[in-house]
């Protein structure tokens, strides 16, 4: 009885869910599209994925060491960042692209701002955009042994016809993890069932985007065109796995709808009026930057206070 009393303020029980379990679930949910990517593009894709993840984890470890912070790699968030970044790289990109990208994602976007929870934009997307600007030719070269020529979305933009069935299943060119809509959605369903993400952001994002391209895409309500736009260019990967990134999306429910609508419109603008056929990465990054503002104006009304604040 002497050592019995552990005392703390209530509540005295905690849920089983933890940050690391959430991160591992995200990794698990990305496995279908990762495995498909390796199958589709070959072993080099696997090497690139492993190098990118390893450099992300290593950079986080080294940074913690350098600034005398507690080692944070056990929360597995660096693994998620590394995997997401790798899935956004072209399959034939040289291995050092993964290292440079990993450095930018972890050190520049995440750690110098205070580490997990403090970054103002999605680290993987930040790094991808950096690589796109810095190493444009490498980052836009999607030719592999199997696939030559433009990505289906670029072909679509150029006015060529595309094979929607192949785009949905994933047997096309593109980044390692973006091609298979089926594999990505399968992973997303797992995350939804685990209660880790919900449909608020992906749902409003995709719906808004569809409405936008129907209105302004110049093809009207053309089923093939819409399906190709949805399946191509990383929209699914972005909507389900990157726009839903906790840290960089609004925490308020209303804000999440606003965020989804904003991303849909931005993606539509970039794809229809921009020079590139893509647009998801930039849309999400701009959305990330607007998140604090969106949160500020979408704070919920407290229970029993319609609009008014407490005294």
């Amino acid at each position, binding site marked *: *009885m002497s050592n*019995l*009393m*552990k*005392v*703390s*303020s*209530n*509540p*005295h*029980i*905690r*849920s089983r*869910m*933890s*940050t690391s*379990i*959430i991160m591992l679930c995200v990794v698990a949910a990305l496995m279908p599209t990762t495995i498909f990517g390796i199958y589709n593009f070959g072993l080099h894709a696997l090497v690139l994925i492993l190098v990118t993840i390893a450099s992300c984890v290593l950079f986080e470890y080294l940074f913690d060491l350098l600034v005398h912070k507690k080692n944070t790699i056990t*929360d597995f*968030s660096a693994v998620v960042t590394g995997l997401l970044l790798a899935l956004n790289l072209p399959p034939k990109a040289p291995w050092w692209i993964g290292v440079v990208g990993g450095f930018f994602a972890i050190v520049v976007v995440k750690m110098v701002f205070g*580490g*997990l*929870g*403090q970054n103002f934009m999605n680290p993987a997307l930040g790094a991808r955009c950096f690589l796109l600007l810095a190493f444009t030719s490498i980052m836009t070269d999607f030719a592999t042994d199997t696939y030559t020529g433009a990505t289906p979305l670029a072909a679509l933009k150029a006015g060529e016809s595309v094979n929607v069935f192949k785009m949905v299943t994933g047997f096309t060119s593109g980044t390692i993890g973006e091609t298979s809509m089926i594999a990505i959605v399968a992973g997303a369903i797992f995350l939804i069932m685990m209660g880790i993400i919900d449909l608020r952001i992906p749902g409003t994002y995709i719906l808004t985007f569809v409405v936008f391209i129907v209105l302004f895409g110049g093809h009207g309500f053309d089923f093939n065109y819409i399906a190709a736009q949805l399946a191509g260019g990383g929209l699914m990967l972005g909507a389900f796995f990157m726009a839903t990134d*906790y*840290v*960089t*999306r609004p*925490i*308020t*429910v209303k804000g999440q709808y606003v965020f989804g609508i904003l991303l849909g419109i931005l993606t539509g603008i970039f794809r229809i009026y921009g020079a590139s056929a893509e647009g998801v990465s930039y849309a999400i990054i701009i959305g990330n930057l607007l998140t604090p503002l969106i949160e500020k104006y979408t*704070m*919920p*009304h*407290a*229970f*029993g*206070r319609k609009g008014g*604040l*407490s*005294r």
Partner: protein
Amino acid sequence: MGARGTFTGGIHPYDGKDLSKDKPIKDVLPKGDLVYPLSQHIGAPAVPIVKKGDHVLTGQKIAEAGGFVSAPIYATVSGTVKGIEKRRITLGDSIDSIIIENDGLYEEVDYGECKPLEELTKEEIVKKVQEAGVVGMGGAGFPTHVKLSPKEPDKIEYVIGNCAECEPYLTSDYRRMLEEPQKVIDGLKCILALFDNAKGILAVEDNKPDCIKLLKDLTKDEPRITVKGLKTKYPQGAERQLIYATTGRMINSDMLPADAGCIVDNVDTLVAINSAVRENKPLMQRIVTVTGDAIADPRNFRVRIGTNYHELIDEAGGFKEEPAKIINGGPMMGFALFHLDVPTTKTASALLCLTRDDVSEAEEGPCINCGRCVEVCPGRIVPSKLASYAARGDKEAFQKCNGMECCECGCCSFICPAKRPLTQQIKSMRKMVLADRRKK
């Protein structure tokens, strides 16, 4: 807006009620001395009217109310007053308490003749409740006669019996409803006699279908009373959420239930009101669930107020495993004890002994902004942001973001995957702000 039987937010923790829900209430006779802290309620402490060496009977008043917002205290055994001295209570501090040595005879005072409810005036009913020392027995301990004296009694439209019992592990209200449902209903009728325009609602969570059925059967000829099933979810029994779930009305932290035309009383309180009004009996007993995976034989006890907690543990077969944490009350709202040598008070609903302490095992990480706290918050505020304002000591931002609306239910701390002490941070900030307001 209609009553939806629930509210937005809330959590579903492991409820642990199976440990004790099928164990009938057992009477416990105290063996050692009985200790009566003079503050077992919100408001002024009671004032002793006995002195060392006095002989007292069961049901004899030993301390008088110290003001309007206060409550008298009664001896729950017959015996001799051993003294009035500081004793430790469940909250951890030591306060003046009357100590009575039990003579084991249980000689009772004569409670006198009791007029039937119909012949009592409203003033007499409230007076009886006040005299009996009835306080909110769900945990808050607010003197019940104050609650029953709203400024505009005609505007009270609902008297809600809080039979939700949403706290995990607690089964005392459940057993009470199952074993003495008529007393619960009769207690509600005593309050309804005070408010001519009010309807009575017995609000029960739907994990207790047997209680719902029983109460429905017993009230089918009572035009003023309905039984409402509520969705099982914590904190369904929190006052503001309960009022919303049963009536669709919302009150904020500055309002009282009476502002929404409601009076809310817990199951045990209703029973205490009933004995006060119909039997002239003061509040002397309550039901306490002694449970948890460290307890050999988890049970529900009818306990005389003043009984030492050690005796309750012994009655429940002692510990089968070394407890890591002992909690006075439920795991969500209860107080961790560092000392078992404390008396049962009017507000003690459970004694929970757990072999595992989630709190000391949890390792705190950074907030990942996941929003789970926002989803579960019944107060519809943003706990993660409020906790960071609290950590920074930013009182202005804290109040601007409705930090004072927090009801301290604990859902945010429970759900947080980064195991951050959100409720605790918000709670201490609220205390600081309230202290500031009192200074002004």
